[in-house]
């Protein structure tokens, strides 16, 4: 691994050097001053409740969603209390019944002869009167503000320079639903949601092991988004975890609203059209990745998790491959490989052959194609390019359009682009077939890879229109060379094919049965290569012992 990490380390160092230039550092400073509560971190609470409240109100001025509630402790006017929380981010039932009710009404009942005094109030409250699962005591103002804004309830007690933070987070959240973008026929259906705690629990439920480590950090100077780095200790390569955390710690940005922000800030190949981190919304997929020795990055506020390192072959794999019977999985995976090639090459090969290499087609087919194209006023390149653009428009519109007008678009798309355009002689039927096939094929494999491939289809079309088959070959070779240059967290993108590790080919173009996949991928899971015991192949019982 060291061999793979080295070049990447040096690249990182290079980047660091450039970021310590004058311009950047002054910009960093600006962000720091405006939004980090560095000065708050150094301030302590005072013993005076009113002073504390005033101070906090000043910091949270013009935040109309913050609620301040002052009341007396145990019907006793001498001891004043106040709670602070953000409306809508807390579980109101919990605040009413477990905090306020307990402190105001139930407290006198548990008095048991002892007298509440201002001095003893804090310890009593904390020990006996807060039936909340998680409380924390602090005297730091910055922590108090953070807690309030994260959905916790802060309790201030008069006469004590100290606040009690009650875990009371509870906000409106989407339920765990079926995955919308990564469908399977057989396999778990649940998908991540926008709340990081729920997502982590989904992972923990799949991997009930103390070695499943979840390290959290807060990124985004303004948004203070929770980010979790998840891995399985003992399987993952420790250097990879260090590397991921190092890259995450370098991030200094105002906001992290989606994993995409992080992806572009920590990837290996910032100029490439191909991703160097995988993203998925399926917990079973993340769990499988973790079990192979990868690291996952979850971000609060998005159902997409990142996993690294990413290999090119992952664009051909789906979670279902591992649940289906292996001959079927292998066949569909080969099919997916074919669709990947088809979606990259079909239109450009069509244009090249129609324009420059007629001799490659069987005569009958050539004649029928020529007959269709007789009325078409454009060269094949313009025709195919226009159709591809039209298809992309339809696809994009299909994503953005309001659900109610969905039918209109599909009718317009299918009829006008297909039928009517052919009948009007604007495009040949052959072109429509090729473009439609390409479009469908591009959805048959991993979506994130298909976006990159779809993009590359256009330069290839231009090459096909200008240089024919030669241009297409050169284009493909360039893509191949580019893919060979890519690395994802030090692991070559094209491995295990190039560089070849023969043992890992069991899970590339085909998927061999589970009893034969004894090892984790070599370059990723090398810290702990053995995945299962050998000799698990089921055998029928000896003939003599028939039931």
């Amino acid at each position, binding site marked *: 691994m060291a*061999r793979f990490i*080295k*070049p990447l380390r040096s690249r990182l160092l290079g980047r660091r050097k450039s970021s310590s230039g004058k311009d950047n550092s002054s910009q960093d400073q600006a962000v720091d001053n405006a939004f980090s509560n560095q000065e708050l971190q150094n301030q302590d609470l005072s013993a005076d409740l009113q002073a504390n409240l005033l101070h906090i109100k000043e910091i949270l001025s013009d935040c109309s969603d913050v609620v301040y509630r002052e009341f007396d402790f145990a019907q006793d006017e001498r001891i004043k209390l106040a709670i602070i929380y953000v409306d809508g981010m807390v579980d109101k039932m919990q605040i009413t019944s477990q905090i306020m009710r307990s402190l105001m009404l139930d407290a006198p009942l548990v008095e048991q002869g002892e007298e509440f005094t201002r001095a003893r109030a804090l310890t009593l409250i904390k020990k006996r009167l807060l039936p909340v699962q998680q409380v924390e005591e602090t005297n730091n103002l910055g922590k108090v503000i953070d807690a309030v804004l994260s959905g916790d309830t802060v309790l201030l007690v008069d006469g004590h320079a100290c606040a009690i933070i009650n875990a009371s987070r509870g906000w409106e959240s989407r339920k765990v639903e079926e995955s919308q973008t990564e469908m399977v026929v057989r396999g778990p259906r649940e998908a991540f949601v926008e709340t990081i705690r729920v997502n982590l629990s989904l992972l923990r439920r799949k991997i009930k092991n103390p070695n499943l480590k979840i390290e959290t950090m807060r990124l985004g100077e303004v948004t203070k988004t929770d980010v979790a780095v998840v891995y399985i200790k003992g399987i993952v390569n420790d250097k990879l975890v260090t590397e991921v955390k190092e890259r995450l710690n370098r991030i200094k940005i105002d906001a992290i609203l989606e994993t995409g922000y992080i992806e572009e800030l920590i990837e290996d190949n910032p100029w490439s059209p191909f991703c160097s981190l995988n993203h998925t919304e399926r917990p079973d997929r993340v769990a499988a990745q973790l079990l192979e020795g990868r690291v996952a990055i979850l971000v609060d506020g998005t159902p997409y998790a990142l996993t690294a390192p990413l290999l090119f072959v992952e664009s051909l794999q789906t979670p279902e491959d591992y649940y289906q019977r292996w001959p079927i999985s292998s066949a569909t995976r080969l099919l997916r490989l074919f669709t990947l090639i088809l979606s990259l090459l079909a239109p450009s090969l069509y244009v090249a052959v129609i324009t*420059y*290499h007629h*001799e*490659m087609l*069987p005569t009958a087919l050539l004649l029928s194609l020529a007959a269709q194209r007789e009325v078409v006023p454009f060269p094949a390149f313009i025709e195919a390019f226009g159709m591809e653009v039209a298809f992309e428009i339809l696809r994009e519109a299909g994503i953005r359009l309001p659900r109610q007008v969905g039918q209109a678009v599909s009718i317009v798309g299918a009829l006008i682009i297909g039928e009517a355009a052919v009948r009007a002689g604007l495009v040949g039927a052959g072109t429509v077939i090729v473009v439609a096939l390409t479009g469908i094929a591009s959805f048959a494999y991993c979506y994130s890879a298909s976006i990159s491939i779809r993009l590359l289809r256009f330069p290839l079309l231009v090459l096909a229109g200008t*240089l*024919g*088959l*030669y*241009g297409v*070959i*050169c284009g493909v*070779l*360039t893509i*191949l*060379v*580019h893919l*060979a*240059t890519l690395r994802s967290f030090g692991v*070559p993108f*094209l491995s295990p*094919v*190039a*560089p*070849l590790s023969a043992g890992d080919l069991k899970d590339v173009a085909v998927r061999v049965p589970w009893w034969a996949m004894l090892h984790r991928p070599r370059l990723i899971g090398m810290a702990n290569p053995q995945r299962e015991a050998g000799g698990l192949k089921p055998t029928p019982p000896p003939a003599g012992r028939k039931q």
Partner: protein
Amino acid sequence: MPEVGKIDSKQAILLMVIMVLPTGFLFVAAVTAHLARQDGWISILLATLVALLIAWLAVSLGLRFPGKTLFQFAEVILGRWPGKVVAFLYIWWYIHMNAEVLRQYGSLLVAAFMPETPISVFMLLIMAIAAYAVRNGLEVFSRVNQLILPLILVSVVILNILAAPEMNIKQILPVFEHGAVPVVKGAVMPAAWIGEIITMTVLIPYLNKAKEAYRIAVTATLITGFFMLITQLVDIAIFGPITAAWLFPGLDGVRMIHLANFLERLEPVVMVIWVAGVLVKISVFYWAAALGSAQWLELKDYKPLVLPVGVIIYALSIMAHDSLLDLFAFLGMFWGPYALTLFIVGIPLLLLIVAVIRGQGGSRH
């Protein structure tokens, strides 16, 4: 060191194979048959044996100076200035050889596929891709090759099987019709071709396991020789002694394929093999030339030299020959003796002898 990448033994074997094969497929049969007629296959056998010796020579030389390429240990052996001269000669050889390969590449595409396109377009595109690959280092084009070469070898085998109905194996008779001399003469050119394995002297410092260098060189030579032999036999079996009359017997052999009224006109497959194979072949020599120049000038990195070296190769390939026939005459008559005596056998043998006599370098590594 200018190059930081390391490749494993499998990658090295594949790299050494593709360094020879793509041009071999299409050109060698004609050149060899020109002299040896139907005995061309014996010439190839002979050439392979010679190449094995060359491989041994290259690896023995390379292993004596671990971590040093030919461009560096020449100085150690001969002293600073004579060493520099030898290294410069090799840089020239790699540039020249690459220019010739590039010209063959362009010529074939123009002559056989797209006669109306200027040759410079073909050569410029492939050089641009090669420059991109070379800039990214040895590891990158080794990986590309790892994807490409297996596909090429499989396609070649399939094409040969498909061409089987056209073959008449009796055409290889009579053996030794004109005695042994033409056969030996015919072996010179393929020996120079397969003998390009001398590039091992540049590659050895970048192997994961330098100890396996002998195995790598021998395996690569045997694979290359085997495929050259098959090609030669197939071409002779299809065309007979007139193989020499074809410019690109390999391509014309594929043109003969007609099966089931459907599998015909398979030349585009040849074009794919040709372009992909030559890309890596050019990259290897291009890399050797750029790396050599950097080491000759004692630079830390060869990447700044990629563009200048590429421009020289490109310009040379355009200026070197007036026509396809000129190119063929040059390759058939001059290239074999020139490369073989000077660069493949002559200088390395001299270096090895001097090193042994002076007791320089150890076999320890």
